[in-house]
């Protein structure tokens, strides 16, 4: 770069300064500071707005409705493979088996929450049937639940890569079981 032409600063070179600058070369300098200020303001604005709006979608597949006239029995599955989750507000009640099922309570915490329970159950199923993917999770939502709980439980399925799960309507007996469990907890 030719130093003479460029003139990188308004001040002349320190070393050889020839002649008092009676008439300093007047290069019009535009003060760019306000422009830069505005530029960065806009930049910040756009950076923030773009990162804020990144909605993602979670696919959900629900089993088809079985109407009376279809005369189709819901598929039968071995109870050893199943775990049933009753999802309440921030809480998950779970049980296995059909004969006098025993309800346990847990939550969505990443340590020792529902994830641990499901992974444990997967190991049990693997020990018995040889493949943890044989496990089937039945999800039933309690009326007290919020949408967040619904997303959380589906998310949990995605996290542990549980492919076989079904969203099923809750039965009266199960609601009763949860009520009993809560009463029991309160009294003890």
């Amino acid at each position, binding site marked *: 770069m030719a130093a003479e032409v460029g003139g990188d*600063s308004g001040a002349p070179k*320190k070393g050889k300064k020839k002649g008092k600058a009676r008439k300093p070369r007047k290069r019009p300098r535009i003060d760019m500071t306000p422009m830069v200020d505005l530029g960065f303001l806009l930049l910040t604005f756009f*950076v923030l*707005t773009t990162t804020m709006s990144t909605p993602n*979608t979670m696919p959900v597949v629900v089993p088809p409705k079985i109407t009376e006239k279809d005369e189709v029995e819901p598929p039968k599955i071995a109870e050893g493979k199943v775990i049933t989750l009753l999802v309440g507000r921030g809480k998950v009640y779970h049980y296995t088996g059909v004969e006098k099922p025993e309800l346990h309570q847990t939550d969505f915490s990443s340590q020792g929450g529902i994830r641990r329970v499901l992974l444990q159950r997967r190991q049990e199923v693997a020990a018995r049937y040889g493949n943890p993917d044989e496990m089937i999770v039945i999800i039933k939502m309690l009326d*007290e639940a*919020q949408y967040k709980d619904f997303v959380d439980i*589906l998310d949990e399925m995605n*996290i542990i*890569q549980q492919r076989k799960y079904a969203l099923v309507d809750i039965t009266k007996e199960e609601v009763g079981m949860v009520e009993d469990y809560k009463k029991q907890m309160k009294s003890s």
Partner: protein
Amino acid sequence: MSKFKAKKQNIAIDMTPMVDLAFLLITFFMLTVKFRAPEAVEVDLPSSIADTPLPAQDILMISVSGDGRIFFGVDSKHVRLGILEKIKERYGYSFSEEEMHLFSILPEIGVPFEQLKGYLALREDERKAIDKRASIPVDSTNNQLKQWILFARYSNPKLRIVIRADERAPYPVIARVIETLKEQKIHRFNLITTFEARPQKVS
């Protein structure tokens, strides 16, 4: 010292490259940013590890507010007009040119069919006030959401169903929405969530 001071060296930093870069970035962000149409309901989305971005078009969005009110929206003007035609046909309402235009630009609607004409006649702030308490009925006797979906899919069969619900929305309302979808043999749909990092150790 004073000798040198007299020179009063004027330090000027050349800001040109910085400005160039800044404006380059601005241009980039301005072009990539997508302003979303203001939605009728404010929704706090729950987070999940799902990372599939929302498809850009052919969206049928069912919004559920935190207090369980249901709104309906489609992304294309064409489909909205198609829906309005169907409403006219089915319920025998008539809409003026302006009402049709207004309807075609509203991103979301949350009023029952009976109130639609009155709603479209209102001013914007009055409509906003109504949006704060309105909802599309989904009772089993009067399931208008089902009609909305039916009309929309009539205009565009490729529509993808998306549920955008507040994380505090009561589950029974969500269950009603899912039930409504099932009744129309829609068993595959998407939930809109915000991204959350996948937990590390899972095995």
